[in-house]
């Protein structure tokens, strides 16, 4: 039952915050914050329960499970379950949610109630996505995430927010429809054999081979790579990020991209092992191109937020590589990348937002030499720029190291090209620092440094990243049983070990 509460609390919180805002705006902010804290309380209790070894007998794959009938006619039930992987993702969501609310404390002044309503409903949609094990319910939450995000970008965004909001909406919605098509084909082919059901566990074994299976897999693959975003489907991300308000950017980069990665991990490869094996070379190609293209675009940008957005494209390219390498190193690397990228990109967007509040521009041409007036802001940006280029000692390094080590087993050429991404990451991170904090302060900026609130958020994120950098064991131990189960589910199809030298 606690799983249902996990989803309901943000929803209810959003509603209450929305209503209260008419009378007193600051109370509305506190309500949404407390809703999130309460929700993360439940999640942490679940995590502690699991991690402290009190977990259930290893036979059951799911820690907590909740199942009830929804549409009996179609065999669709409300089936929520959580294992190591989804629990971590829920924790990340709530953590970044709190950071987001904190970051937008002063930034959002108009329609605060409606803002927090949308914000919390996005979070509950995302938590729903991580918990749903029924494909129809998954698709339902996948769409629930979408509409409030559209409003978030559309109403509180910057200059041409309408274009960005529409673009974001159409990209994700259209790909979602294709996924719905694939879900239905999967369900009906399964129904031909057994009974009509949308349940993930039952659908796991459906025989899906040959080009037919490949096409169905591509339906899922398309939806998740659009959300990831992988190379050819990424153009919506820079626009969405540039125009979204800070809190929007934080959860967009921190969490929404992870739903794509989670989808790939949970649905694409386990449901279609044979098709994925055939598709691996192309996916690896897309991943490598994504890494290099994203990086190259990043250091071509003059707009700060677009730069950070393209870095996310590059980092998510690693996730795609890791998923399709599908061995133990790579999978752990993917989980680490999802969490650490959440931290580092969320932080970078918060800092860029803070900078925007002070300098009212995102053009690097008009900044420069800000270190003198805002050393703490500079130091924090330096830290997270280093995190994004994968400096050892932070979580991102371990993630990228594991992904590339895992990938090395599968294809050497892909790894070597992807490693070029590390160099490119250095270039764009230094380009970012050079554009904003170093160089002469010829515009004579006099800006206030980070205040206590912002510093506390930065400190939390720094601590998180360094802790993950030097002692990621609790995370890896938590996700171990989930990844084990995932690999078992594709065990019968021979895992492509050092398959080809492509």
């Amino acid at each position: 039952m606690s799983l249902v509460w996990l989803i309901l609390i943000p929803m209810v919180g959003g509603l209450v915050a929305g209503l209260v805002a008419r009378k007193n705006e600051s109370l509305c902010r506190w309500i949404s914050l407390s809703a999130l804290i309460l929700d993360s309380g439940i999640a942490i209790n679940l995590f502690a329960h699991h991690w402290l070894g009190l977990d259930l007998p290893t036979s059951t794959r799911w820690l907590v499970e909740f199942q009830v009938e929804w549409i009996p006619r179609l065999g669709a039930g409300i089936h929520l379950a959580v294992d190591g992987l989804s629990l971590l993702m829920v924790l990340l969501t709530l953590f970044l949610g709190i950071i987001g609310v904190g970051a937008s404390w002063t930034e959002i002044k108009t329609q605060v109630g409606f803002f927090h309503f949308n914000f919390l409903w996005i979070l509950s949609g995302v938590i729903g996505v991580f918990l749903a094990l029924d494909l129809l319910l998954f698709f339902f939450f996948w769409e629930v995430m979408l509409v409030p995000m559209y409003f978030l970008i559309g109403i509180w965004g910057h200059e041409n927010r309408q274009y960005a909001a529409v673009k974001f909406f159409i990209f994700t919605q259209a790909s979602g429809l294709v996924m719905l098509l694939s879900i239905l084909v999967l369900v009906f082919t399964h129904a031909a054999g057994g009974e009509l059901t949308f349940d993930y566990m039952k659908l796991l074994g459906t025989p899906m081979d040959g080009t037919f299976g490949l096409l169905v897999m591509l339906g899922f693959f398309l939806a998740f790579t659009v959300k990831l975003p992988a190379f050819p489907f990424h153009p919506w991300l820079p626009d969405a990020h540039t125009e979204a308000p800070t809190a929007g950017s934080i959860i967009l980069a921190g969490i929404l991209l992870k739903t794509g990665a989670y989808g790939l991990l949970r649905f694409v490869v386990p449901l279609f092992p044979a098709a994925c094996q055939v598709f691996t070379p192309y996916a690896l190609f897309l991943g490598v191109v994504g890494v290099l293209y994203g990086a190259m675009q990043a250091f071509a940008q003059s707009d700060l937020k677009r730069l950070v957005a393209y870095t996310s494209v590059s980092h998510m390219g690693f996730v795609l590589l890791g998923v399709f390498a599908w061995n133990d190193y790579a999978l752990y690397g993917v989980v680490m990348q999802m969490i650490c990228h959440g931290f580092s990109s969320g932080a970078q967007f918060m800092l860029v937002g803070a900078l925007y509040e002070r300098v009212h521009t995102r053009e690097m041409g008009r900044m420069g030499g800000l270190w003198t007036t805002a050393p703490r802001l500079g130091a924090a940006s330096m830290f997270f720029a280093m995190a994004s280029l994968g400096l050892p000692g932070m979580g991102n390094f371990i993630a990228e190291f594991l992904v590339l080590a895992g990938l090395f087993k599968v294809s050497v050429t892909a790894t070597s090209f992807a490693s070029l991404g590390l160099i490119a990451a250095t270039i764009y991170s230094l380009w970012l620092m050079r554009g904003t904090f170093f160089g002469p302060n010829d515009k004579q900026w006099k800006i206030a440094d980070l205040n206590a609130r912002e510093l506390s958020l930065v400190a939390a994120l720094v601590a998180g990243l360094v802790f993950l950098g030097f002692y990621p064991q609790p995370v890896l131990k938590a996700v171990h049983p989930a990844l084990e189960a995932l690999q078992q589910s594709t065990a019968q199809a021979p895992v492509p070990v050092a398959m080809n030298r492509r």
Partner: protein
Amino acid sequence: MNSADIIALLPLILLTLATIAVMLAISFKRSHGLAAGLTALGFTATFLLLPAISRVAPHPVTPIYLVDTFGLFFSGLLLAASLVVTLLAYGYYETRSGFREEFYLLLLMSAMGGLVLVGSTHLVSLFIGLELLSVPLYTMVGFSRTARRSLEAALKYLVLAGVSSAFLLFGMALLFAATGSMDFSRILEMGRSGDASSTPLMAGLALIGVAVGFKLAIVPFHLWTPDVYEGAPAPTTSFVATVSKGAMTAVLLRLYLLAGGVIPDSTVTIFSILAILSMFTGNLLALMQNNVKRVLAYSSISHLGYLLVAFLAGGEYAVEAVTFYLTAYMVTSLGTFGIIALLSDREGEPELLQDYSGLFWRNPVAAGLFSLFLLSLAGIPMTAGFIGKFYLFAAGVDHSAWLLIGSLVINSAIGLFLLPPDCRFHVCRSRRKSHTNPSAGKRSGKPARADARFCGYFLVWGLPRVPDSSDPQRDNRLNSAYHSF
């Protein structure tokens, strides 16, 4: 005329009584409230009697009219829609002067035409029903005779409906010449067994197809829709969009069930092409449109294209998909046009998108509902529209009609282009006053808001349990409809 006949004919009788009552009311004292009240009373009475009648179903009254659960279900649907239209009309005409009561007369008679159509199993009742549905519509479309555009719309509708009914007649004549009888089941039997010369029969069916295409606004015959939707007053448009299309779909569905769900290949291919064309034309034309009513006209064309997909996909899901999609579509159209009627006043209707800018801040309930209906039109989850589209997908996938499903997906994507601008306009804009009718959105008739909210609730609440259908009575009628064939 034994007692069973009387009971079977009760809906028609009641509506006639209502018509007479309204005429007498008009002749004594022209009061708008009284006329509307009587009409509403007529509709509700008939609607409430339907379950009683269903006990005597299936009962053929004279060889041309059959009252069965299938017919009663759709009659219920049409009556509910007409009731909503009456409420809208009351809200709409409350602020207008001039001769308003005739509208309700025409509405009653047109609804009666719909009921005849739904129950018809014979060419004559098909023709009479269709004409009884259309003739009052000509006047309803051109009801505000001072507005040049509505006169133009009425003329266009009259001429084109005339031509289409001429085609219908000629088709029927060919059928009659080929088979010698005018009863649907006999004709279909003769057609299947092939003893009658099949070519005139096929030609007859083709020409009837023209009339059906015209009424459902499928692609080559859709040209009239945008002009009539734009010209006609809002309540009439909602009536045209829902009841007339609903009735014709019911006839099509009955023919489909009579033919045992088997459609010859040539028909499937040609109608798939038409369906795909309708989807694309409807969505593409609605894309850059600035006039809200024309946008809804084009999107109704594309929706009929989607509906045809369910028919052509066939299989056991087809009937259920069509019924549900039709219900969802009708409710959404009633909702959207209801909002337009609700927001219009003496000066005119809020037609341009700009009129809706900033509506959210002035009249949140109307704006909220309007967004909800638009979301349902685009088929976004949480709305009945989504479940409708989901059924279409299921029917299509079940029968692996890939081309249709592919175009359905592409069009839903194009449909998305349509949604944000509307949502954006009345939600995201600042509190700016719209110049055309500043008072738009302020004043709203009590009943009009009630019905709009009803549609809203149905939409959202419809989602989780519609398949096992909220209205148990409707559901078993639906199932029983199958057993009766």
